[in-house]
């Protein structure tokens, strides 16, 4: 019994080392989306009014964007990293003419409006997914996530976590350019 107790630290370490070894074969940053190169899930969802005074326009149908390259950003006002990525979304919207669709995920409309009023609103379309239904269809793990969809309506790229300088310049912008060229 006593020996077993003394072997416990070693046993725990061996288990840990096993996981570490397995971990070496995994890429923690990689979050494969089963949607890559698959048709993007179509959706019909309420728009989020830009300010409390506005009343909501009619629902948004994802088919509206058929034929163009567009970007879907899943965000929420309760999400810290969203604040961090926000300036890069602003830059994205300034530097490329692609529809930037902001899916406000599991959020209170009032909070979301305040958040946008404070930081600025880079979104072409602002959608209200307060129950998270659209997010579920898209396989959203956490917020923020960003998808790039090509002119044929296929998901071509997925970025998990906040967009930063490097991912904007090295991934998102080049991919958007490439897809826009593809579309001709």
């Amino acid at each position, binding site marked *: 019994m006593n*020996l077993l107790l*003394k072997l416990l*630290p070693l046993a725990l370490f061996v288990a840990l080392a096993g996981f*570490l070894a397995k971990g070496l*074969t*995994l890429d923690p940053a990689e979050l494969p989306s089963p949607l890559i190169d698959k048709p993007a899930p179509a959706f019909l969802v309420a728009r989020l009014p830009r300010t409390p005074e506005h009343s909501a326009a009619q629902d948004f149908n994802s088919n509206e964007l058929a034929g163009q390259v567009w970007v879907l950003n899943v965000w929420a006002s309760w999400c810290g990293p969203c604040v961090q990525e926000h300036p890069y979304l602003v830059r994205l919207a300034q530097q490329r003419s692609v529809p930037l669709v902001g899916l406000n995920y599991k959020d209170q409309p009032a909070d979301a409006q305040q958040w946008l*009023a*404070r930081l*600025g609103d880079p979104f072409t379309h602002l959608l209200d997914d307060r129950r998270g239904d659209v997010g579920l269809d898209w396989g959203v793990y956490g917020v923020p996530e960003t998808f790039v969809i090509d002119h044929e309506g296929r998901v071509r790229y997925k970025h998990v976590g906040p967009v930063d300088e490097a991912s904007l310049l090295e991934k998102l912008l080049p991919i958007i350019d490439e897809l826009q060229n593809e579309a001709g």
Partner: protein
Amino acid sequence: MIPELGQFALILALCTAVVLAVVPLAGTITGHTGWMAMARPAAGAQAFFVSLAYACLTWSFVTHDFSVLYVANTSNTSLPLIYRLSGVWGGHEGSILFWCFISALWTAAVAVFSRSLPQVLLARVLSVLGFVSIGFLLFVLWTSNPFERLFPVPIDGASLNPLLQDPGMAIHPPMLYLGYVGFSVAFAFAVAALIGGQLDSATLRWMRPWTNIAWMFLTVGISLGSWWAYNELGWGGWWFWDPVENASFMPWLVGTALIHSLAASEKRGVFKAWTVLLAVLAFSLSLLGTFLVRSGVLTSVHSFAADPTRGLYILLFLGVVVGGSLLLYAVRAHKLTSTASFELLSRESALLVNNILLVVASAAVLLGTMYPLFVDALGYGKMSVGEQYFNAVFVPLMLPILLIVGLGAMLNWKRDKLSGRAVPLAVLGVASIVLAALLATQLLSFKMSAVASLSLAIWVTASTVYGIVHRLRNKRKRLSAVLHTPAAFWGMSIAHVGLAVFTVGVALTSIYTEEQTVRMELNDDHSVGGYSFTFTHLDEVRGANFDAIEARFAVSRGNAELGDISAQKRFYDVRQDTMTEAGIDAGLTRDLFIALGEPLDGGSAWSVRIQTKPFIRWIWLGTLFMAAGGLLAALDRRYRKVGVPSTTSDRTARPALRSDKNGQGSSASIPVTTRVSAPGGQTGL
């Protein structure tokens, strides 16, 4: 030429490390004194060669030798000298070389300051250190050579990550490394004790200052990292539970347990096997931290060099060092029996409970850090563990620790009676709560959580003061009693007060911080937490190697003008990185923190994050106290008068009688001069 010299020196260092690891240890087995005597010169030679290699790399940085790949990657002609010197450890290859450098210096220091140790023990200890050294030197030479040449030679380098261009960040890694590597000394002693099958109080006493110093460096290193994050990351947070932060925090927690357990083992002869286990764990967690940072197994804001080969190497090394020493522990720990007994109500009990709580806390941090990996490796998908988990687990563990720190400081060793203590305990306890409630309501506003944490902080302080008074109560000559109280006692008291100060800082900052992110145009003003901030200036500024936009805010409270705060957004030339340099008006009772977000509406307005953070300075003030306490305790004269075996008595033997004067006589019942018996080694020189 110089880089090749460095490379050559590294290879020679590896050779000496092999000699150090093998020859003295073989000597302890065969009883060959000459082999054992090789330990000290080999340690010296290793330190010389590693230092030479380190100096060569530094030279390449100073002279802008961009034909060296590592220099080209981490330095640049416009980089100021100070950051070229710190740039040596600013990247992966250099930081591992730096680890070897520190390790060689610690080993040499052990060799120099340990003349009084029995030769067999010293030979074992230095061999273990040599073995660890082999691991890291091989790692440098094999997977991370900092002297690799680059051809064609670039005209200019890529420059140091601007995150690291900050005085605090420049010395943060060395401090951490001094701490990590410092634990290798306690580790080597623990392994030597397991091999020898005995651990006497003279050896334990000898381990204490080394462990204290390592712990002190780790404390300073972690604090600097937190300080830097607060100043540079622009979020106003001071701790993020990031995997890399956790990697340094776990050995700290176990190291804290270790220095306390060492005290109990040395003074009372208890917990010996436990102390050895903690020494092994503290260093193992340091190595694990290195693995996590260097292998890219976990994502982190600190993500440094991620390279699976390097990861695989460290994992194998970890397996040999940690697995080997834990196996040794399982087989040999029964030899390290504790001699003394103690009762439930005693300082030993208090130390043991807190030791366990610290280890549990460390395990909880480990679990949270590794959980995403576990889930991923088992194929359950991806997930991350956030601050909520750590706070939810950690805070409930820390509160009893604080309670028991106070209690332990008041209890006697071996046994104590409640009858004599109940009244002062109750008085101090009630007084702490009342004072905390008064302070919280008068200075800030009443919140239960604030009162609870303040009470515990006051309790720790009060019990520390009580401990001091109690110690001096029967002394007739107060001044001489104070002067003769050992430094270790003062160090402990200061560190405990530091813990209290730290608790106040953490609690009040997290409970009372007010924060707003607002859109501000020039001349706008905004109020947060009773302070008014007016956006008065917006200028472009040129720094040494960056352009910056500087925003100035005038601060006032009521009618009182409190001066200006400037916050910058910096754009570094070479790497095109953007950095937020927060503007902070520091104060003992509150910080005003402003960070610039992004320009809005084409630059006519900015998003500005304003925070008022009560008592946040106390966090680092507390850690400073802890570090000072650790240092002071390590300098205790008592540690320099270790019992001396006959072979080297001419150099270091001092009359052991003096030890009674330093006030230890009453609590330490163990004879101060303990003859260290060393089986099979004392054949004489």
